[in-house]
């Protein structure tokens, strides 16, 4: 039986969602609609009496003060157009899940098991619109065709009282679950065809390796004894494809590279990951010796470092780019709740204490045609923003820091970086918490959500460019509440010592989570028929690789399995025994007792040969800019302040809870009106202590147009500099590297692969160099190598992008410094030398140039400056400190002034600089490692003494009026701007989005 309950607002009650939708129709689609009303629709399936429907509608489904409802009838009365949007079958419906539980609570006995509620939403539009325009509103704004369906009703055909036919998006699976054998022929073309058709993303060479493995006599005998027939099963093939995917295996980062520089010199690199990323960390740890505070690096889901004697910190940043391109909301939501599970599944599991997000988009004001399958950047912006809002806020994790980067090339794929930090006791029941062990005999448990067809081929799909065959099934929608229930439960189980090890189910699903844990014991035996499913009919291979969210895999002590399961039941979380870990050397999978996969652990994890690649560096030569210094530099400053990469992000920041958990110290918005741009977050993870954590990010993809070596150096410097600016010492700072690249493997699709790989090599070499000199070890990282779009003749590749994220320990948060000017009379200092480094700058971009003089980082001088500044902060000598980055000194000075609410008068001729004779270049050069600092007059002497060995100059002072006055190099006033107009220029760009 199917029923429909509609819930709408009583007349006269404001419909905030309807109003917001009306504004977005106007803003995004430039269509004027008089009014939008919304109606929530619940479609109920099951044996429900009229009395029960009435109690459900009047109880949990509606609010008697402001809402009304209709059962099996319609609330819609007068409208011009009606659009109803619901989910397609199998798509995660979080509200439907909660509604189902709410109905079940009102029922007794076993009938409740047959109940299922699906949700949809009606939009009633009033206004003069053509059907085509209504279709545009439905498909271009309200519904994403991949996951949702919609229905349009013309108001002229509607009579009140009429009802809409209920639609039940039930998953109907026709086939019985089965396992097929796949024949791997001796024919390369057919091997390639099998790989493409099944979205395996395996190369012909990799397919051949699998075929050869199966021909080995020992392997054949073992498989026969396990009950397998000839050929490989689809379960095995899919499992190998996931495990061997670029996404999981990082084949390019581990490849053997022959690099040729611009002078023809050749050198070889045996794995960028080992030599550059891990290499630097190993060297730093060795130098630290007994003082080493790194605990677990590169081996677990997240990096683990010491916080103090009693606690450890855990940090990880991930990307979720490809799914966010197809479904921005679901992709980003899955991105944030997915990365939450990384620190949660590191060591014995950490409590999650902060999120940090960085998004790279094309301009939301993009005009012009969009290539097929590409959503408008504004829709991506809003969808990603909302997905991360729901994922972060509903999980109760503060979003403490982040940034937005804009470039037209992110049209092909947006970058959605989501990061999460956690804290865990250093020891749990006496055992070190950062060590992960699995013993033979431990029980394999899957807990949390159920398995559906969602997220199938996520790992392999993101190992390819976005193309016309990119599968819809790769899209998932996260469920933060199911995950919160699970994490609440697992933290209790952890503290009671009920499990030995934990890991996340992310990319590759069970094949990766069980596979990786099994490598710690030496094998496993699981039966997929035990796995709880969202709906019947999944094939064993689908169960194994589904990336359905909110699941963790655990190794539970056999003697504690009952206690573990009893706790799960009590706390309302599903926990299922899938099998046990062994030391058989085999990845052994059954379905209902029948073996469906029997692979050697060694082959699964080590069977892939190292890729061999070529890289060749030719420095690009861009036209040298030739525009004159503008006569109105005040206007130039305002134009820069309003640029997407510089302007205020307050509208987005406010929608993220940045202070839940109670430890917020430096918030993302600071200053007199609480709207200035904070450089980094400071928080207290333990409320009874003043020890703190600093979190910051650095990212500057524009510099990749000149040299990725400089790009990486600048990203690292920016992250470190931001952390230093609020009070973090270099000595307790760790980093995470997140590379997002365009495909760097030379092929027919990528003729410039050698150049792109050379860009990757150079970025890694910078990473090695700068992290070593700063003494900031990378503790974990990630790479996403196929950020291209290719359909038809159109190819869009992202600019190579490194996000460098920093986590640091601060001894006493009460010494933290913010960027806003504090008092009239305070002295304004510039720290660091300004050089003619405008290549890739915002100023050049505003004038239509890239240029060539990219900023170069002098790490040794920067390091001594950072250390001196930290000493000055420790001594309490700094009133404000602001990082100098995009848009240069002009922007940093203006922001310091308007965030503080005070005027400023500075003289450019006093700025430490070399090679610059133009005011615009001095104001807007993006030389690195610089700060704008204000100091109270009384602290002047002590401050200057500490900074004596660094390029430091007092260039002016904070004033009591509200003007921003700049004296130029020639001694004349070049700018006198009202603070309010500068702030307005900075705030207006994204305010209404």
């Amino acid at each position: 039986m199917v029923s429909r309950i509609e819930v709408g607002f009583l007349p006269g009650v404001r419909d905030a969602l309807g109003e917001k939708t009306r504004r977005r129709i106007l803003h995004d689609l430039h269509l004027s609609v008089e009014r939008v009303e919304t109606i929530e629709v619940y479609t109920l399936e099951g044996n429900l009496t009229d009395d029960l429907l009435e109690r459900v509608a009047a109880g949990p489904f509606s609010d008697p003060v402001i809402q009304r409802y209709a059962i099996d009838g319609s609330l819609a009365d007068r409208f011009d157009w009606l659009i109803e949007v619901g989910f397609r079958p199998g798509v995660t419906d979080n509200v439907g899940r909660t509604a189902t539980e709410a109905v079940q609570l009102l029922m007794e006995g076993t009938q409740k098991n047959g109940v299922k509620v699906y949700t949809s939403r009606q939009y009633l539009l009033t206004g003069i619109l053509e059907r085509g325009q209504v279709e545009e509103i439905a498909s271009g704004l309200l519904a994403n065709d991949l996951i949702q369906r919609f229905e349009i009703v013309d108001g002229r055909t509607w009579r009140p009282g009429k009802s809409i036919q209920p639609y039940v998006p039930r998953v109907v699976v026709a086939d019985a679950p089965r396992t097929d054998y796949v024949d791997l022929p001796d024919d390369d073309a057919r091997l390639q065809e099998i790989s493409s058709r099944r979205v395996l993303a395996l190369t012909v060479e990799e397919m051949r390796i699998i075929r050869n493995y199966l021909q080995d006599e020992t392997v054949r005998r073992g498989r026969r004894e396990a009950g397998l027939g000839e050929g490989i099963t689809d379960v095995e093939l899919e499992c190998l494809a996931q495990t061997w995917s670029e996404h999981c295996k990082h084949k390019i980062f581990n490849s053997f590279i022959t690099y040729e520089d611009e002078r023809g010199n050749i050198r070889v690199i045996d794995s960028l990951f080992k030599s550059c990323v891990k290499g630097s960390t190993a060297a730093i740890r060795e130098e630290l010796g007994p003082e080493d505070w790194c605990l677990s690096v590169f081996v677990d889901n997240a990096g683990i470092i010491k916080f103090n004697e009693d606690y450890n910190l855990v940090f990880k940043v991930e990307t979720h780019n490809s799914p966010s391109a197809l479904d921005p909301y679901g992709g980003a939501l899955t991105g944030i709740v997915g990365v939450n599970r990384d620190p949660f599944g590191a060591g014995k599991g950490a409590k999650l204490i902060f999120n940090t997000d960085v998004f790279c988009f094309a301009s939301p004001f993009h005009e012009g045609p969009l290539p097929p399958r590409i959503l408008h950047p504004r829709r991506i912006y809003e969808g990603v923003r909302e997905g991360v809002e729901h994922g972060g806020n509903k999980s109760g994790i503060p979003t403490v820091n982040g940034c937005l980067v804009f470039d037209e090339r992110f049209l092909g794929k947006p970058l959605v970086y989501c990061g999460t930090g956690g804290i865990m006791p250093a020891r749990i029941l006496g055992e070190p918490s950062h060590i992960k062990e699995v013993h033979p005999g431990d029980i394999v448990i899957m807990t949390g959500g159920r398995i559906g067809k969602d997220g199938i081929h996520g790992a392999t799909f993101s190992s390819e460019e976005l193309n016309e065959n990119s599968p819809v099934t790769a899209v998932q929608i996260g469920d933060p509440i199911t995950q919160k229930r699970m994490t609440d439960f697992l933290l209790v189980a952890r503290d009671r010592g009920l499990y030995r090890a934990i890991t996340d189910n992310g990319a590759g699903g069970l094949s990766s989570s069980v596979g990786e844990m099994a490598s710690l014991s030496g094998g496993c035996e699981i039966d997929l028929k035990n796995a709880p499913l969202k709906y019947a009919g999944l094939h064993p291979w689908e169960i194994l690789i589904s990336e359905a969210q909110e699941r963790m895999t655990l190794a539970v002590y056999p003697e504690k399995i009952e206690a573990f399961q009893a706790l799960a039941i009590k706390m309302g979380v599903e926990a299922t025994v899938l099998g046990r870990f062994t030391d058989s050397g085999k990845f052994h999978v059954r379905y209902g007792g029948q073996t469906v996969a029997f692979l050697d652990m060694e082959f699964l994890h080590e069977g892939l040969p190292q890729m061999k690649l070529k890289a060749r560096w030719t420095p690009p030569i861009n036209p040298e800019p030739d525009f004159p210094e503008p006569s109105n530099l005040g206007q130039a400053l305002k134009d820069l302040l309003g640029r997407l990469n510089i302007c205020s992000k307050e509208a987005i920041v406010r929608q993220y809870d940045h202070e839940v958990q109670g430890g917020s110290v430096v918030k993302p918005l600071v200053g007199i009106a609480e709207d200035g741009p904070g450089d980094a977050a400071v928080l207290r993870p333990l409320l009874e202590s003043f020890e703190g954590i600093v979190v910051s990010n650095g990212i500057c993809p524009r510099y990749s147009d000149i040299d990725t070596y400089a790009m990486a150096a600048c990203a690292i410097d920016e992250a470190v500099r931001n952390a230093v600016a609020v009070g973090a010492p270099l000595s307790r700072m760790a980093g995470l590297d997140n590379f997002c690249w365009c495909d760097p493997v030379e092929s027919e699709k990528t003729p410039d692969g050698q150049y792109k790989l050379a860009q990757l090599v150079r970025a890694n070499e910078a990473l090695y160099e700068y992290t070593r000199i700063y003494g900031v070890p990378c503790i974990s990282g990630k790479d996403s190598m196929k950020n291209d779009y290719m359909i038809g003749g159109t190819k869009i590749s992202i600019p190579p992008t490194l996000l460098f994220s920093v986590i640091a320990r601060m001894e006493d948060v009460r010494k933290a410094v913010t960027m806003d000017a504090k008092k009239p009379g305070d002295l304004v200092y510039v720290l660091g030398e300004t050089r003619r480094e405008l290549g890739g700058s915002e100023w050049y971009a505003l004038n239509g140039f890239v240029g060539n003089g990219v900023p170069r980082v002098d790490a040794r001088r920067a390091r001594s400056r950072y250390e001196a500044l930290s000493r000055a902060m420790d001594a309490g000598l700094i009133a404000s400190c602001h990082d100098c980055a995009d848009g240069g000194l002009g922007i940093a000075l203006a922001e310091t002034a308007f965030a503080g609410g005070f005027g400023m008068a500075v003289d450019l001729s006093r700025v430490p600089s070399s090679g610059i004779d133009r005011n615009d270049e001095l104001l807007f050069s993006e030389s690195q490692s610089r700060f704008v600092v204000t100091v109270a007059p009384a602290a002047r002497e002590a401050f200057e003494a500490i900074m004596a060995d660094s390029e430091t100059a007092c260039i002016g002072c904070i004033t009591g009026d509200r003007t921003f006055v700049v004296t130029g190099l020639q001694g004349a006033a070049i700018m006198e701007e009202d603070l309010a107009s500068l702030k307005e220029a900075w705030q207006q760009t994204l305010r209404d989005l």
Partner: protein
Amino acid sequence: MLQRVRSMVITGNGTNCEWEMAHACRLAGSDEVDIVHISELLSGEKRLDDYHFLNLPGGFVDGDDLGSAKANANRLLHVRVRGTEERLYDSLLRFIGEGKLILGVCNGFQLMVKLGLLPGFDGGYGTQTVTLTYNDSGKFEDRWVYLKPDAASPCVFTLGLDGVYLPVRHGEGKLVPGDKAVLKRLHDQNQVVFQYCDESFQEPEMTYPRNPNGSTDAIAGICNETGRLFGLMPHPEAYLHATNHPRWTRETLPEEGQGLQIFRNAVTFIRREF
């Protein structure tokens, strides 16, 4: 005078401010503070009867999926404690009947309103007369707000309090009364404990962003007629130390945050009355 003040902070299914709320109770002098998962109440392991001060913290219980706190209200009203005929709601009514204190913040306030515990005219708990609904902006927002208390309110939590500055972090915080009579009675009986106001704490503010959600008469928090049940949208547990204040690096502030006094008043009251 009571020897040991016992406070409970309920969590589970999406609650997320339980740690700082428990910390506030401890700082306020509560002798025992337990963070209790709702499953421990439903299994009968923990009993509300053993406590004096119930804290309903903020969060997104059930994801706000059917409207904030709706599904949780349904749970408390209908699920029975294991092995008994008693619902959690029954033990809540008993707790209230004994004159004990309940503080609901944000999602906890939404729950109290939707269970009909607030404003609870004539002790008629169970009938919902006001609601908390979507902010006029249609957005979730995190921002600090100025709050003006009603000095004549019977609320035991705000005794002696002047204006306070606290953060709101919600998408559904607009208070809407069922009708004008309800609103009038709220004012007449001084049950409007806090109103959003200007920075001098003088005048209630109806304009955004000082009134962050468009709340009727700028109402930010209300109590019942005895003043022992109190709910508010802003988060007092988010301002326990000076460093929580968004302008602490530029203003001279007392080390103790303004939110703490609300908890201290509760503990002092319990110690005196029980």
